[in-house]
C-alpha cells in the first residue's frame, strides 16, 4: 500500500490549495472567517508536512530498507548524528526538508502577525502557500521520498514505485548504501540546514512584499514587519556559506575554502541582493524614497534563491557538488517564470502608488553613499551571475559551452570587493543628508593617517603584493573609522547624559542597536577580508618521504615517522605520523589520515592542521605506498582562521541588531511618558 507519509503530503497539498483559495476569496469579500480558515489551513499544512518529515526520519532510524530513499542515503553502520543528516543528504529528502522549513517559517510568521497587518495577511498566507504547494507538489509527483522497492515475482528484478506494481512483492534491501562519506563531517551535517534556512527564510519578506503589491497597502508597514525576517535569513545564508567553506577546507583537501563553484555562487547571489536590500531599506525608512527599488530588490533576492536551487539541482551547469540530473528542471523553470512575471506585472500596476515624494538633500550624504553601495553590490551580483550562467548562454547562442572559472571571478570580484570595503569605511563617516567638506576633512584625516602608517609598516616589512597592500590598508582604515564612531558616539553621550565612558559606550549600543550592531557586522567583514588577503601569501609543497625523512616548508620542518593501517566497521584507515618542528623546536605531532569507506567504495582525505591565528599548517596524506613511504602535500595558509572568526563577529553583530528593545526599559519609558503628559496637563 501507499506509504502514509505520501498520503500526508497529498493531504498537505490539498490543504495548501484550499488555503490559497479561501485566503484570496476571503480578502476580496472582506470575510474574516474565511481568511482565518485560510490561516488554520496553513497551520494544518505545517502539521502534515512535519508528520511526513518525521515519518521519513522514523524510517531512516528504523533502517526500513523497503524505502528506496532510506537505502540510498543511510546504512546500518552510520553514526546516529549523521543518520539525522540523511534526511537532507539526497535530492528527494532535501526537497522535502525545504518544504518543511518553508511551512514552519510560514506558520511562525503568520502566528506572530495574528493580530497585526490584517489586510496584508490573507495575501501573505496565499503567497506562502503557493511556495509550499510547489515544493510539496515536487515531492508528490516528481521527486518522491516515499517510493518503495518492489521485486517482480519470479524474477530478481527490483523496481521502485509508490504503488505496488502488479505481480510484485515488497522488497527490502539487506543494507543501505549510506550517506556519501564526504558529507560525514560536522560542518557538512549542519551546513545544508543552515543554508536552507537562509534560502527558505527569504520567502517571508517575499510574501510580505508581494502581499503589499497585491493589496495596495504600500506604506512602509510591510517593510517594518519584515526587517527582522530579512536579517535572519541573510545571517543564515552568510553563516551557511562560511560553514560550507570550512567543510571544503577540512574535507576536500585542496587547501582552499572557496572555488567559485556554481553551488557556491548560488548562495552568494541572493546574499548579495539581500545585503543591498538591507542597506537601501534604510533609505526608505529615513526618507520614504526608493520604494520601487526596494520592492524589486527583495523580490529579486527570492527569485535568486529559487534560481540557485534550480541551477544546482537540475544539472544545467556542471559542479563538483551537483545533485543527480533529474526531471525537476522544467518544474523549476515554470515556477521561476511565474516568480518573475507576477511581481513585475504587479509593480507596473502599482507604479503610481510607488512614486517618491522625497528627494536627496545633498550629493555627498549617507543616502548617496548607500546608493553607490547598492550599485556596487548589484555590480558584483551581475558579474557572478554572468560568470555562472555563461556556459548556458554560450551554448544557447554559439552552440559551444564556454566556462569561466576561478581566475575570472577573482579578476572581477577582487576590485569590486575592495571598493565595497572602502565604502564600508567612508559610508558611516558621511552624515545623513549633508556633509560639509570641512568636517569631511576632519573625519577622514585621522583614519587616513593611521592607514598610511600601516601601509608604510607593511612596505617596510617587504610586502609587495598589490591587492594585499590595498586590502590591508583599507582594513586598517575601516577599522579605525569604526573605532572612531564608537568613540565619538560615547563622547556625545557622555556630554549630554553625564555618563562614564563605558556606561556611555554600552548605552550607545543599547540605544542604537541597528547602527552600532551594524558596525560590528562591518568589523566582521573587515576581519573576513583580512582572512581572504592571507591567500596572497600562501604556499604549498609536495614531498615524497620515507620513514625518518624530513621536509622543509617556510619555518616548519616535518619529520615523517611512518604510517599504520587499521579498519572499523565503516572504513579502512591509513594513519601517518609526523613531528612538526618550528624554528628547531618540536611543536606538535600530527596524524594525517586517509580513510576508505567500504560500502561506498570511496576514499576520503582527512586533513590535519597545526592551527594558529596567524597561519595554518595544512597537511594532506596524499598517497601511502606499499614500501611505507608516502607522498604528502603541505600547505601554509596564512590568516585563514580569521575567515572563521569573522563568522563569530558577524553573529555577534547580527545578534545585537536582532535583540528586542528591553521590555523593562520600555515599560519604564512608557511610565515616564505618562508622568510627562501629566505634567503638561
Amino acid at each position: 500500500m501507499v506509504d502514509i507519509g505520501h498520503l500526508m503530503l497529498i493531504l498537505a497539498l490539498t490543504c495548501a490549495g484550499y488555503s490559497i483559495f479561501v485566503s484570496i476569496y476571503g480578502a476580496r469579500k472582506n470575510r474574516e472567517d474565511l481568511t482565518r480558515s485560510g490561516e488554520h489551513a496553513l497551520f494544518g499544512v505545517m502539521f502534515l508536512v512535519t508528520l511526513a518529515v518525521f515519518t521519513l526520519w522514523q524510517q531512516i532510524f528504523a533502517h526500513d530498507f523497503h524505502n528506496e530513499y532510506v537505502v540510498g542515503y543511510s546504512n546500518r553502520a552510520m553514526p546516529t548524528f549523521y543518520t539525522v543528516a540523511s534526511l537532507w543528504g539526497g535530492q528527494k529528502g532535501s526537497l522535502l526538508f525545504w518544504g518543511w522549513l518553508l511551512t514552519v517559517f510560514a506558520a511562525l510568521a503568520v502566528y506572530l502577525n495574528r493580530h497585526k497587518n490584517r489586510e496584508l495577511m490573507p495575501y501573505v498566507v496565499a503567497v506562502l502557500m503557493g511556495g509550499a504547494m510547489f515544493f510539496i507538489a515536487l515531492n508528490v509527483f516528481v521527486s518522491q521520498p516515499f517510493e518503495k522497492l518492489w521485486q517482480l515475482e519470479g524474477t530478481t528484478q527490483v523496481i521502485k514505485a509508490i504503488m505496488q506494481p502488479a505481480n510484485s512483492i515488497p522488497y527490502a534491501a539487506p543494507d543501505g548504501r549510506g550517506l556519501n562519506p564526504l558529507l560525514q563531517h560536522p560542518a557538512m551535517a549542519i551546513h545544508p540546514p543552515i543554508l536552507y534556512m537562509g534560502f527558505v527564510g527569504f520567502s517571508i519578506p517575499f510574501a510580505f512584499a508581494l502581499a503589499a503589491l497585491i493589496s495596495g497597502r504600500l506604506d512602509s508597514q510591510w517593510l517594518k514587519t519584515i526587517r527582522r525576517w530579512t536579517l535572519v535569513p541573510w545571517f543564515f545564508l552568510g553563516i551557511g556559506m562560511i560553514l560550507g567553506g570550512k567543510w571544503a577546507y577540512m574535507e576536500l583537501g585542496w587547501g582552499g575554502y572557496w572555488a567559485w563553484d556554481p553551488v557556491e555562487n548560488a548562495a552568494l547571489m541572493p546574499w548579495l541582493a539581500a545585503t543591498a536590500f538591507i542597506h537601501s531599506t534604510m533609505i526608505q525608512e529615513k526618507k520614504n524614497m526608493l520604494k520601487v527599488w526596494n520592492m524589486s530588490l527583495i523580490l529579486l533576492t527570492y527569485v535568486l534563491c529559487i534560481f540557485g536551487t534550480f541551477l544546482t539541482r537540475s544539472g544545467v551547469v556542471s559542479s563538483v557538488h551537483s545533485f543527480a540530473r533529474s526531471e525537476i528542471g522544467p518544474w523549476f523553470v515554470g515556477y521561476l517564470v511565474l516568480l518573475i512575471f507576477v511581481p513585475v506585472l504587479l509593480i507596473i500596476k502599482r507604479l503610481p502608488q510607488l512614486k517618491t515624494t522625497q528627494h536627496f538633500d545633498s550629493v555627498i550624504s549617507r543616502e548617496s553613499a548607500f546608493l553607490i553601495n547598492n550599485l556596487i553590490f548589484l555590480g558584483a551580483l551581475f558579474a557572478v551571475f554572468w560568470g555562472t550562467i555563461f556556459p548556458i548562454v554560450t551554448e544557447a547562442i554559439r552552440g559551444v559551452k564556454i566556462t569561466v572559472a576561478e581566475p575570472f571571478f577573482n579578476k572581477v570580484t577582487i576590485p569590486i570587493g575592495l571598493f565595497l570595503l572602502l565604502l564600508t569605511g567612508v559610508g558611516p563617516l558621511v552624515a545623513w543628508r549633508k556633509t560639509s567638506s570641512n568636517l569631511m576633512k576632519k573625519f577622514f584625516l585621522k583614519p587616513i593617517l593611521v592607514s598610511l602608517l600601516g601601509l608604510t609598516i607593511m612596505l617596510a616589512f617587504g610586502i609587495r603584493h598589490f591587492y594585499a597592500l590595498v586590502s590591508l590598508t583599507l582594513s586598517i582604515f575601516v577599522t579605525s573609522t569604526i573605532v572612531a564612531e564608537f568613540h565619538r558616539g560615547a563622547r556625545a553621550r557622555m556630554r549630554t547624559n553625564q555618563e562614564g565612558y563605558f556606561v556611555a559606550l554600552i548605552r550607545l549600543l543599547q540605544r542604537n542597536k541597528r547602527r552600532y550592531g551594524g558596525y560590528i557586522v562591518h568589523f566582521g567583514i573587515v576581519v573576513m577580508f583580512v582572512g581572504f588577503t592571507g591567500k596572497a601569501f600562501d604556499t604549498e609543497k609536495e614531498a615524497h618521504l620515507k620513514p625518518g625523512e624530513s621536509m622543509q616548508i617556510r619555518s616548519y620542518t616535518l619529520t615523517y615517522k611512518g604510517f599504520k593501517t587499521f579498519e572499523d566497521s565503516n572504513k579502512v584507515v591509513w594513519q601517518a605520523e609526523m613531528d612538526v618542528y618550528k624554528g628547531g623546536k618540536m611543536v606538535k605531532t600530527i596524524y594525517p589520515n586517509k580513510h576508505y569507506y567500504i560500502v561506498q567504495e570511496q576514499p576520503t582525505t582527512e586533513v590535519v592542521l597545526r592551527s594558529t591565528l596567524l597561519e595554518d599548517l595544512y597537511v594532506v596524506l596524499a598517497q601511502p605506498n606499499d614500501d611505507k613511504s608516502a607522498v604528502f602535500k603541505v600547505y601554509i595558509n596564512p590568516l585563514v582562521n580569521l575567515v572563521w572568526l569573522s563568522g563569530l563577529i558577524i553573529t555577534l553583530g547580527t545578534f545585537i541588531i536582532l535583540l528586542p528593545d528591553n521590555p523593562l526599559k520600555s515599560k519604564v519609558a512608557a511610565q515616564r511618558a505618562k508622568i510627562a503628559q501629566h505634567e503638561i496637563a
Partner: protein
Amino acid sequence: MAEILFFIFLASAVSFYVVFPIVQARTRAGRRVNSSNNHPSELVERKQTIYAAIKDIEFDYQMGKLSKEDYQELRQQYKDEAVRLLKEIDQKEKKVTKGAIRANKKDAQANFCWICGTALVIGEKFCPNCGEKIE
C-alpha cells in the same frame, strides 16, 4: 489497516480545525475585517519619517558630523516640515490634537527629542514618546 484508520482520523481532525473559523462565524454572526484601523495614514507615516530624520540630524550633530550651520539649517527645514505636517494631519482629522497644541506652542526654542525626534514642549522633563530624559 491501523495506518489507514490513523490517516482517516488525521484527515478529519485537520479538516475540522481548518473549517472551524467558518463554523464559529456562522454561530456568532461573522466578524468582519475592519480595514481602517492600525495602518498609519500616508501623512502620519511621513511625519514618522521626518521625526526619524530629525533624530538622525541631532545624533549626527552630537557626534560632530554636521557643522553648526548645516545642523541649524537642516533642523529648521525639517522642523518646518514637521509643523506643516502636524497641522495638515490635524485639519484632516478635524480635531485639535495634542500634536497641534505642541505645534502651536512651537516657537524659536521648540525642541525635538534627540532619541526619537518627537516635538517637545518647553518644561517637559521626559520625552512623551520614548521617555528619554531631557536636559
